[in-house]
């Protein structure tokens, strides 16, 4: 990497920029705007649209500024008559084949071609021939993309973004010259990520959103800056509504760390807000099991009675890690101060110990790391999980940075993923053996270089071969990774939720980080979380052992496992599930169903009738993202403020208001509050949050150690009988964070619940993509279509988490590390 500086003159103004900067970027820095179509930050240079031509002293012809790097003492002119004339002529060329159907086009009003013609363009066209028409009617490329090739300006942004950022490359430039059309293979329906990046980058109305088709004009829309609620990447998005209906979510390139990037869930999952299936009023269960609407006053009165009846020891609460920081803070305050219990959790899936260890190892308690910093490290290691589907935008960022910088990307995960194609080395570990994998890595590092460090003595007794036998990764591959780690100047580690779920590898990771800090010095750990505000939930102290700001709790409570056990024994009089569907997520469905039925008074507050809701005594409606103000902390530790785009409908209330009123009812001095008041309190209580100003900031929190990490270095392969599959679960590309099932668009993309296996396993079973198989374990059977995932080894299967009606957690056995299932092809009778 060159870091030299170059000084040049642009329109007579002197600017100094980094060597290798493009003239276009340098001009922007100097304050001159050069129009362009084909240039797009983060994409490879193309120089095809010729809009950005500039005059350079000493060069006879005009040069495209978007692919010409600066040179010392260059004298560039961007506003001469020649340049202006050329711009106008280029636009005239583009318009010569443009249908000019702006009144019909959805892009009208926010179209780059319109803007540029208005600014630079000819006022009159001289082209009198027939225009090229690719087709008469717009055609549909996917359930979310509709295409009109006639309007295309052939900038190829869509083709490049699909290949270089999204990593699919399903779009191509078909044809030649004016007949070129950026489209799918033979214009067939796309089988892709449906992320809509091609729509977002398209400067004209060639790629359009199908759900937004002919719904509104840009000037009709009321917009608000929000944060995506589907995963912990925490992408910034702008929600826009017309009337009371939210009609689209867009990524504003000038706003937020994700710039233009969004995935299918973020871009098209907004329609959950408009869903008809939402809970609209408080409902109370009658004797006969049916629900009857009640007023809020009555509902809160019932809640108060139940809390007082149960008493602090027999009460508990689980809040979803998708709520805002303010809501989570108030929830734990309500549980601790009003109810008087520390029985609470922010998840239904892993234990409190497991999360403590993960917080410690991934450095969550000590402030944030930017995903860019992590991705730009010399060596990037992804541990566990399915990054490409669980955190799609993190995957995009890693891919395009890797494509541009050619740094080493290593993936160690049980399942194949899209990012594998960018990785220098991608290894498949046996599920729940991340610990063994890291231990092998440690041993390989010690073999190569003598390190004397506390905690490393035990490593010396291990052998790489033995450990590689456990985690299923070739010993040579482990040594290759170790060699790369030692020569790297900086290392980025992305730690997936598998480590939390299986309570696996946190100790080893902490040791690895310490070791690398001694040798490499610059180590950045980024946790990959699947719930939008999991990190915020921990920061806010929604944890049985931790109070806000990672202060150890004076009185420890039960975590979700403890709560379920307590309920099962009949010792729970009151349980408050705030946005969390314990029944659909807890890794033992039969057990938790029994437990919930034994709870004295179950209150479920949620936006939809989740699995747990029908079991509740009291169901309360809840406002969702886009309907409330607040802050969210993403996996990087970035605190982002979100605004409401509209008010919640009818009787729907925010959790903040509910908790405030319920608390006030029981204790007079518990305040009914607004988000701003809670935020002020959070800033006082949580270290790091005090420095957060404005819309977006990293919290620089630091806190005391939350867990003692001592690796045991004893490993075993999780049990699995011959021919069985380890069943993994998590977010699916089109299904995550519970809400997606109620989004009509995402439901259409998903089609339904699937079971995902590798191609070798599919061959063994003799099934193909879409064939039905029967998944069976613990006496429960489910017939599901197969999806084949290249790169997933035989013996590993995946089912999306929390899919109503096809519950993956029915197959889980709480007492086993990784549950197994049998899968066999399902043949219809008579075949």
């Amino acid at each position, binding site marked *: 990497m060159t870091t030299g500086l170059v000084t040049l003159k642009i329109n007579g103004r002197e600017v100094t920029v980094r060597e290798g900067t493009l003239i276009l970027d340098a001009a922007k820095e100097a304050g001159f705007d050069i129009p362009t179509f084909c240039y797009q930050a983060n994409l490879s240079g193309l120089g095809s649209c010729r809009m950005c031509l500039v005059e350079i002293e000493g060069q006879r012809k005009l040069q495209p500024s978007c692919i010409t790097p600066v040179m010392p003492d260059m004298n560039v002119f961007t506003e001469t008559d020649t340049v202006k004339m050329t711009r106008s002529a280029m636009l005239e060329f583009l318009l010569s084949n443009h249908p000019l159907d702006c009144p019909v086009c959805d892009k009208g009003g926010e179209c780059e071609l319109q803007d540029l013609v208005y600014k630079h363009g000819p006022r009159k066209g001289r082209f009198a021939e027939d225009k090229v028409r690719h087709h008469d009617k717009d055609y549909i490329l996917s359930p979310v993309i509709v295409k009109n090739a006639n309007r295309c300006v052939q900038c190829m942004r869509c083709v490049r973004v699909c290949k270089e950022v999204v990593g699919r*490359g*399903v779009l*191509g*430039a*078909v*044809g*030649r010259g004016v007949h070129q059309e950026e489209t799918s*293979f033979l214009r067939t329906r796309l089988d892709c990520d449906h992320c809509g990046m091609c729509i977002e980058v398209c400067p004209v109305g060639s790629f359009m959103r199908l759900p937004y088709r002919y719904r509104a004009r840009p000037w009709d829309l009321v917009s608000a800056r929000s944060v995506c609620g589907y995963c912990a990447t925490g992408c910034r998005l702008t929600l826009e509504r017309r009337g009371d209906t939210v009609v689209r979510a867009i990524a504003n390139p000038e706003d937020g760390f994700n710039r233009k990037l969004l995935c299918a869930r973020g871009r098209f999952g907004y329609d959950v807000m408009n869903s008809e299936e939402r809970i609209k009023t408080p409902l109370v269960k009658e004797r006969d099991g049916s629900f009857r609407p009640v007023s809020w006053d009555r509902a809160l009165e019932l809640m108060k009675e139940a809390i007082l009846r149960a008493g602090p020891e027999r009460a508990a609460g689980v809040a979803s890690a998708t709520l805002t920081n303010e809501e989570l803070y108030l929830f734990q305050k309500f549980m601790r101060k009003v109810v008087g219990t520390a029985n609470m959790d922010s998840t239904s899936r892993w234990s409190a110990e497991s999360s403590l260890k993960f917080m410690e190892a991934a450095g969550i308690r000590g402030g944030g790391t930017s995903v860019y910093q992590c991705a730009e490290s010399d060596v990037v290691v992804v541990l566990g999980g399915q990054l490409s589907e669980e955190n799609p935008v993190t995957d995009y960022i890693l891919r395009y940075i890797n494509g541009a910088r050619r740094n080493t990307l290593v993936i160690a995960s049980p399942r194949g993923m899209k990012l594998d194609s960018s990785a220098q080395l991608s290894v498949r570990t046996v599920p729940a053996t991340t610990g063994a994998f890291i231990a092998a890595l440690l041993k390989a590092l010690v073999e190569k270089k003598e390190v004397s460090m506390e905690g490393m003595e035990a490593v010396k007794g291990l052998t790489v071969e033995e450990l590689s036998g456990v985690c299923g990764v070739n010993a040579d591959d482990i040594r290759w990774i170790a060699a790369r780690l030692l020569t790297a100047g900086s290392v980025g580690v992305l730690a997936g939720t598998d480590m939390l779920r299986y309570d696996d590898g946190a100790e080893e990771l902490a040791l690895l980080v310490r070791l690398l800090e001694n040798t490499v010095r610059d180590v950045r750990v980024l946790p990959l979380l699947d719930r939008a505000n999991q990190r915020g939930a921990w920061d806010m102290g929604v944890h049985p052992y931790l109070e806000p700001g990672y202060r150890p709790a004076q009185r420890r409570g039960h975590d979700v496992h403890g709560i379920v056990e307590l309920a099962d024994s009949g010792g729970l009089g009151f349980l408050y599930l705030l946005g969390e569907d314990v029944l659909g997520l807890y890794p033992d469905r039969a057990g938790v169903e029994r437990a919930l039925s034994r709870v004295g008074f179950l209150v479920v507050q949620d936006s939809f009738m989740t699995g747990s809701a029908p079991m509740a005594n009291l169901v309360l409606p809840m406002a969702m993202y886009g309907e409330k103000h607040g802050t969210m902390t993403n996996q990087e530790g970035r605190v982002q403020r979100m605004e409401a785009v509209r008010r919640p409908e009818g009787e729907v209330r925010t959790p903040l208001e509910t908790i405030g009123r319920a608390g006030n009812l029981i204790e007079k001095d518990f305040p009914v509050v607004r988000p701003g008041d809670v935020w002020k309190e959070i800033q006082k209580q949580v270290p790091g949050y005090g420095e957060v100003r404005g819309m977006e900031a990293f919290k620089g929190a630091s806190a005391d150690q939350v867990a003692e990490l001592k690796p045991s270095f004893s490993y075993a392969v999780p049990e699995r009988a011959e021919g069985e599959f380890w069943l993994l679960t998590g977010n699916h590309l089109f299904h995550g964070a519970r809400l997606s099932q109620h989004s009509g668009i995402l439901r259409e993309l998903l089609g339904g619940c699937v079971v995902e296996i590798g191609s070798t396993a599919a061959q063994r079973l003799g099934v193909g993509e879409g064939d039905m198989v029967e998944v069976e374990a613990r006496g429960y059977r489910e017939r599901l279509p197969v999806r084949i995932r290249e790169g997933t080894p035989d013996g590993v299967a995946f089912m999306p988490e929390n899919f109503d009606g096809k519950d993956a957690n029915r197959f889980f056995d709480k007492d086993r590390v990784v549950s197994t299932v049998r899968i066999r092809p399902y043949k219809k009778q008579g075949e």
Partner: protein
Amino acid sequence: MDEKTRREIEGKILPKYRTRRSACMASMQLVQRQKGYLTKEDMEEIARLLDMEPVEVEAVGKFYTMYNVERPVGRYHIQVCENLSCSLMGGEHILKHIERLLGIKTGQTTGDKRFTLSVVQCLGSCGTAPVIQVNDDYYENLTDKKVEEILERLK
């Protein structure tokens, strides 16, 4: 695409290139030789063999006039050059003449599936204009009489 072609791509074409996708054009040429044009399945197969996306293969195929993507052609594919030199030397007249002789329009195939007539860009033989290309062979310095002879021979 049959097994033999697949083996030929793997064995003969691929070793010539450093990256797999570079073998795209040569492979397409090979596959097209079989029935004269490329089907959807052919392109998908080539893409799979060469680690490409099908749309990339299609894009290559539709860029060059020498590939017939999803366009069945007759046994003899007559390609008439319409660029400057040939036009000046009477290429357009040659085209009209062939159309008259075969009774088809440009882009069409004769009823007996013997001839397909199309117009192409420069064939790179301007010195001997006008030129037509029938399958892989060039016929140069054409006159009406020569064209008649050629077509007679091929009939």
